[in-house]
């Protein structure tokens, strides 16, 4: 019986309507993937707008993309790839019950995400200083095209929505650090860390597409 109590203690994360941890884990993970589907299609709408406008005005995209700093965009790509690696390492550490190093990896992920946002901040303020605002506030005259404002509307919508996701991801990972510190996650129950990781990788995937589409037009 003593054995059973210890077992029950470890299974406190198990909700009453699931039969076992595996069923709960599989369910949560499938739920997360379905949520990621909705994310893909939400960003999908913006990609559709991008594709339609690029097919209509290829010259606009060629001219306007020159304003974006490829070096900063590439740096951000590297930063996000590194953060994807660290969150994957964090999940591996939790699976192996190395909670200490998992917390370090997650803290590194938050730091990298913060770096991404800082670089993004410098990019945005640089644009604002030139008068490149989204939509009607656009006053820059360095681009010789009637619809330059439309390109930057799409740019701000795509990178803005992505940036919001980065911030949400930072919040989620911070929450996971707190959970890990309190000992709520371990090799027997790491579902929230796993799902946060999935979310973070999706944020990375979206940037993988944004980078060549926005910065690398030649």
């Amino acid at each position, binding site marked *: 019986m003593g054995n059973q109590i210890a077992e029950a203690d470890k299974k406190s994360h198990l909700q009453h309507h699931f039969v076992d941890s595996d069923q709960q884990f599989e369910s949560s993970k499938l739920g997360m*993937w379905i949520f990621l589907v909705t994310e893909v299609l939400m960003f999908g709408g913006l*990609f559709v707008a991008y594709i339609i406008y690029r097919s*209509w005005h290829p010259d606009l995209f060629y001219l306007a993309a020159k304003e974006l700093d*490829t070096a900063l965009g590439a740096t951000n790509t590297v930063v996000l790839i590194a953060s994807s*690696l660290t969150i994957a390492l964090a999940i591996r550490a939790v699976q192996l019950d190395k909670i200490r190093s998992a917390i370090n990896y997650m803290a590194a992920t938050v730091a990298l995400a913060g770096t991404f946002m800082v670089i993004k901040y410098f990019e945005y303020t640089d644009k604002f200083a030139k008068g490149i605002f989204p939509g009607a506030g656009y006053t820059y005259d360095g681009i010789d095209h009637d619809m330059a404002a439309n390109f930057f509307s799409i740019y701000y919508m795509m990178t803005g929505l992505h940036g919001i996701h980065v911030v949400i991801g930072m919040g989620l990972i911070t929450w996971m650090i707190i959970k890990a510190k309190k000992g709520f996650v371990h090799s027997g129950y790491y579902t929230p860390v796993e799902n946060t990781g999935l979310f973070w990788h999706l944020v990375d995937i979206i940037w993988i597409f944004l980078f*060549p589409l926005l910065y690398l037009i030649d």
Partner: protein
Amino acid sequence: MSSHHISSHFTLFGVAGALLVLTFLTVAVTWINIPEPYNVIVAIAIAIVKAALVAMFFMNLYWDSKFNSIVFLLAILFFVIFVSITLLDTLFRDAGLPIY
């Protein structure tokens, strides 16, 4: 169930290394001038390979229940439907139909 796969350091660092190489590659191809439609195709192709690497090895789809992969591919499929049918309008708006 194989969903509790624990990735090795070799896999994780290997994938990250491949992603960095591909990032360099996608910037590098803009230094040589590839003609108009092909430069976009190359850029998107590299991005798709990178995304696939992340999805398969960082997001564990390679080891996971196949249904999760189907779910993800379904999202891509419906995005493609969305794009292609909308393009059917926007690309041919001024064209008219030859029979009229």
